[in-house]
């Protein structure tokens, strides 16, 4: 097994990840036909009318954790990117992190997302102290930051 995959497996077995599982915050959603470096993880969403209680993120985890994760929203049943019409909507950080016009939804528009960070200059990341990816982080960091954005009254549903 590759080193990045071994690290990821260790991190999802860690108490920090499993604590989130026990709290109902997130969990891995295994899927046939999905091969490394892709992994789907769901995050619980707050209750909103006509909106799902979980959002699926398909991660790309090549060279994890030296390089950070990048993720897009995923239709788990159809195994394809979630149509942008179904992405989370809301004000402030919800509207920005889940913006649908960012490279056609290739990644979340967040400082902790690798794709988005790489598309910006280092000064952009410096504007968000403590929110950029470090190789000492685990997938829990990405999930926690994303979950905290979603679990606010700024989120209006999907």
């Amino acid at each position, binding site marked *: 097994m590759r080193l990045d995959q071994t690290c990821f497996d260790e991190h999802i077995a860690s*108490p*920090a990840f*499993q*604590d989130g599982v*026990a*709290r109902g915050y997130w969990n891995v959603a295994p899927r046939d036909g999905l091969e490394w470096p892709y992994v789907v993880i769901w995050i619980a969403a707050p209750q909103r009318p006509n909106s799902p209680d979980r959002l699926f993120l398909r991660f790309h985890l090549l060279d994890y954790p030296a390089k950070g994760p990048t993720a897009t929203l995923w239709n788990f049943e159809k195994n394809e990117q979630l149509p942008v019409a179904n992405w989370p909507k809301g004000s*402030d*950080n919800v*509207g*920005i*992190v889940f*913006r649908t016009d960012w490279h056609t939804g290739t990644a979340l*528009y*967040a*400082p902790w997302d690798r794709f988005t960070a790489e598309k910006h200059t280092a000064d952009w990341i410096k*504007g*968000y*102290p*403590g*929110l950029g990816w470090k190789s000492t982080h685990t997938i829990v960091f990405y999930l*926690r*930051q994303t979950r*905290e954005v979603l679990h*606010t*009254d700024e989120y209006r549903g999907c």
Partner: protein
Amino acid sequence: MAQKNEIFAHFGGQKEVCRLELAEELNIRAFIERLSKDGHLPESKPEEWIACLEDADDELPLDYPLEVGKHKRIHISRCKKVDVTVIFNGAPKSHHFLPGTTLRKVTHWAREQFGVDKKEKLVLRADNTESEPLDPDSHVGSYVSHNHCKVTFYLTPTHKING
């Protein structure tokens, strides 16, 4: 087959959570003895420690039974109380919390103390106003050490991400 009791144990001064599966029902005394035996705690007497459930208002007596599925998150610490100081815009406010109190609850307390509007999104940071936002589910007791049952946090607005 008997259901295993999954417990997440938080320890004073340690950021890492420990996940345990107990095959049998233990009380707090036996649980602390087990943690010492397994090396999670230094060799010590149970009386040297206090145990409390996450965000509970009281510590647990040593004869308190840990029931399957009912007591998932326990904090074990030598600090009976943690003296928490929160600094917001340079002004400090202090209060004593049980070590198993989550930063989410401390943030809620601080918001009321400083009279911050409910719409303002806030996070606690440890070292300065620009360090990493702390996990709101972590416990105040995890940020102290045995000899210093004190901790200071910085209350700051959540960074607004610009598109």
